[in-house]
C-alpha cells in the first residue's frame, strides 16, 4: 500500500518527471509513492529520474496505456 498517490494521467514530458520529483521532495525516507501515468516516454524517463535521485522503483505495472510505478523514497 502506497503512502501517497500521484495521478499524472494526461501529462506529457517533462511533467510526470517534474511532478514526481516535487512529490518525492515532500516525502520522508521509507515512504512509498504510487505514480500513475499514461505518457509512453515515462517508461524510460521515470527510471532515469529515480536513478539520479537515488530512490527506488519497487514495482512497474503496465496495463494498456496506463503505467503504475511504486517508488520508495531513500
Amino acid at each position, binding site marked *: 500500500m502506497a503512502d501517497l498517490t500521484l495521478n499524472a494521467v494526461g501529462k506529457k514530458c517533462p511533467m510526470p*518527471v517534474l511532478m*514526481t*520529483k516535487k512529490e518525492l521532495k515532500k516525502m520522508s525516507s521509507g515512504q512509498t509513492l504510487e505514480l500513475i501515468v499514461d505518457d509512453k516516454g515515462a517508461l524510460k524517463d521515470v527510471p532515469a529520474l529515480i536513478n539520479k*535521485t537515488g530512490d527506488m522503483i519497487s514495482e512497474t505495472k503496465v496495463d494498456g496505456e496506463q503505467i503504475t510505478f511504486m517508488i520508495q523514497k531513500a
Partner: protein
Amino acid sequence: MAETINYIVKDKSFEKFAMMMLLGTTADAMDIKSNFFFTFWGLNLLKKGYKPKVAGMPFPMKGMAAGMFKKRMAKFGIEDPWGMIKEAIENGNMKLYPCQMTMDLMKIKAEDIIDIAEAPVGAAAFLEMSADGKIVSL
C-alpha cells in the same frame, strides 16, 4: 561535483525556447546543472515581452502555430513555461546567460533583458564554466 551540461542557444524560435525549457527544468529535477548561453538570434528569447514563433511552419502560420503549440502543451501540463524555468533557476540548477558581444552587436540594453537572466558573459567566461562539462548547441 554536480554534473553540468552547457548549451549554446543561437535561434529565437519557439522550438528552441521549448527545448531550453524542457531540458533545463528536467535537468533541475535530476539535479543536473544547466548553463544556457544565448547568442546571436537566440538572445531574443531573453528579451522582455518577446514572443517566439514556430520556425518550422510556413511564413504566415509561424505566430499562429506558436499559440496552438502553447495551448496543446498547456493540456500536457506545461501551463506556465517561464514559471517552471524560474523555479529551476531558484533551485540553483539552471542559469541563463546573455552573450555580451551579441548585446553590443545588436544594441540590446541590459534593461531589455528579463530579470531572471544572469549578467551577460563573453565567450571566454562561457568556455571556462563549460570546461569540465559538455557543450551542446541548440
